[in-house]
């Protein structure tokens, strides 16, 4: 077993939206046989939470040039393009 990758979920308040997205991504990846560790924060605090993080998934605009892979998406709220975003997440986590 390799150590699960850590995904940081961000939204405006770091509570409601990011929790919904974190649950949705965690469940969907589990179905693909991938387990992840999740963390959450506000988009304005992302920079100070990046240590050990493999990927940032946000529902709101992120600061530029985080130096880590980052995806901004509403797919896990609206359902639109969900599979494409999951493919993208899977590719990043496997690299």
């Amino acid at each position, binding site marked *: 077993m390799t150590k699960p990758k850590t995904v940081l979920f961000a939204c*405006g*308040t770091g*509570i*409601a*939206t990011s*929790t*919904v997205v974190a*649950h*949705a991504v965690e469940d969907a990846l589990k179905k693909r046989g991938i387990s992840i560790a999740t963390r959450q924060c506000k988009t304005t605090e992302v920079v100070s939470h990046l240590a050990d993080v493999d990927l940032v998934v946000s*529902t*709101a*605009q992120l600061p530029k040039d985080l130096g880590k892979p980052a995806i*901004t*998406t*509403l797919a*896990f*709220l*609206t*359902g*639109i393009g969900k599979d494409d975003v999951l493919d993208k997440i899977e590719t990043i986590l496997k690299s």
Partner: protein
Amino acid sequence: MAQALMNYLDPGAILLGVEAKSDQEVIRLLAERLHSLGYVKPSFAEAVLAREAQLPTGLPLGGDNNVAVPHTDPEHVLKPGLAFAALTAPVSFSNMEDPDEKLPVRLVFLMALNDKDKQVEMLQEIAGAIQSPETIDALIKSKSVEDVSRLLG
């Protein structure tokens, strides 16, 4: 699962056939209901408007009938509740993902959140409901509180 949504959605805070000129007007209208029904403090409306200006909540569904989920910090909330408006004509909300993009919104869910776990459930169920184009369509056409309860309950 979606039943919990109706636990929060107060029948007195379901507004159908709303004619509003702006996102602010819809938010004020719904916030007023939540206030008179005892869910939120008088400061709630302004706090939601301020947050919406900074961190917008429009969710693009790929067409002309989009959804917005305005909300604000727990300190303005007395107990968790949900207000809902269906608009006769769209008003413009900014896209959560890209504040520079404006979205025509027909359905507004104003969330009064004060419990981290409950607010997650509320938003999760709204997300579940809006992922069905049939539900969106039916909500826009709904004529009564019963129609809305049936669609969200």
